[in-house]
């Protein structure tokens, strides 16, 4: 009995980590996460544009951030939603995909200061758009 209770507990924990129906609370959390990834990407882009980062750090960290944004894009594109928020969820998915593509540019061109400077504004705009979806 105790073993089943423990398994149930773990299932509950992990169910909350990933998948399942997107409700308003989950939409808010995921919007905040996408906002965070885009803002962090903008910070990194800013440092690259000033020559304040290193090639390997910029390449690896941009890839980490891009991967996380891509995971959100994939997951939010297909997860079921509660009534009334599906459009917002799919919009957030597209936004996460865009953030992922922009971060991929940083990953591919970690020393290109011009490219990094040109990505700052779109990443900030994405962060702003994602934060609006959280409200």
């Amino acid at each position, binding site marked *: 009995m105790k073993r089943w209770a423990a398994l149930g*507990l773990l299932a*509950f*924990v992990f169910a*909350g*980590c990933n998948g399942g129906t997107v409700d308003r609370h989950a939409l808010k*959390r995921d919007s*905040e*996460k996408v*906002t*965070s990834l885009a*803002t*962090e990407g903008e*910070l*990194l882009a800013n*440092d690259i544009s*000033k*020559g*304040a*980062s*290193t*090639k*390997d*750090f910029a*390449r*690896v*960290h941009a890839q*980490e*951030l891009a991967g*996380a944004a891509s995971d959100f894009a994939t997951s939010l594109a297909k997860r079921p939603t509660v009534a009334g928020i599906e459009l917002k969820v799919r919009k957030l998915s597209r936004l996460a995909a865009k953030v992922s593509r922009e971060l991929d540019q940083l990953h591919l061109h970690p020393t290109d200061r011009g490219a990094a400077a040109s990505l700052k504004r779109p990443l900030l705009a994405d*962060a702003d758009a994602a*934060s609006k979806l959280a409200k």
Partner: protein
Amino acid sequence: MKIFQVALGILAAIGGFVDIGDLVFNVSAGATFGYQLLWVVVIGVVGIIVYSEMCGRVAAISGKAVFDAVRERLGFKVGLMALVSAQVVNLMTLTAEIGGVAICLQLLSGLPYRSLIVIAGIAIAIVVWVTSFDWIERIFGYGGLCLLVFAVAAVKLDPIWSQVGHGFVPGMQTQNPTLYAYFVIGLLGAALTPYEVYFYSSGGVEEQWGPKDLGLNKANAMIGYGLGGFLSLALMIVGGSLFLVKGIEPEFLGSIALGAEVPLGQIGLLLAIVGILFAVSGAAIDTLFSGAYNLAQFLGWEWGRYRAQTGAPRFTVTWLVLLVLALGAVMTGVDPVQLTEFAVIFSAVALPLTYIPILLVANDRSYMREYVNGRLANTLGLIYLLVIVVVALAAVPLLVLTNVGQG
């Protein structure tokens, strides 16, 4: 040269206080609640100083480390339970730290993560095999001091110091008290994480401490863990000054390094990554040794790095097996940061089984003679035991209620 003698405390603290989980946990706490949780770090630091001093004193006077006491005081059955829980948490933490070493190497070199896991594992094995205990302490303890760059970053980020000051006074200004409680429990669990005292007390025996070293024990506990706490505070202030303001939830080791890069540029970034590399490598060695110490002490085997490998063969085989198991686990692709968060919370559950025997032995005159706990040590020890029990009871429910701190 006296300063070099506190290397054990510094390694135990750098490895225990600012391992991969603490780095992310402290910065996340700052990014989520600003400076509101600084007081928890202070409480955690005092607690670990109290118990480390106690178990260091026990080691110096009786020559016994923590798991000797666990076996003697808790009996075989309960002692075995403590051993199993300690080993599971040790292995989880070791896995996470090896992953952390590989991530740092990747941030420095850009090489593939999986290859770096293997390189990290081999490097740790070679260092542990060929390097004396003293030099392991010095290399990783003092190398980890590069993390002081976060103190400079915290100042450079120009926080509102009056708000920082308020953070040292317990209080809760949040709409999410459950998440706040989760961070309190997590920070306390991370500060009091059991492998720190396993390593510290066994290290005292390794260094063959005696009654004349009690002053050194106090200095190690206070300077080492005080420094670890200082670094934790700096990390939290960086989290509050940079990430909270920007709305960033730092979830990667790279995010932590970015916290030094933004205010200090490339030099800050490099010092941060090197400091993290030494800290997580030190933590990997702490946990690797702790796992071997615990098993050897519980089963009454010969143990100790001060002996030749052949002088304590089962101890040597144990740490080699633990290293291979952890390497296998990290190669499955498990996220080191998430894993260590689970390890911190689960280790909180096992805290009483570690700390109760220490308190009992430190009060036993047949072991400790005139060096038994005084009134202050007992009062603080009992207060912290209460804190530890609350942390142990609340850890898993809060983990579930907050969806692993996701709110």
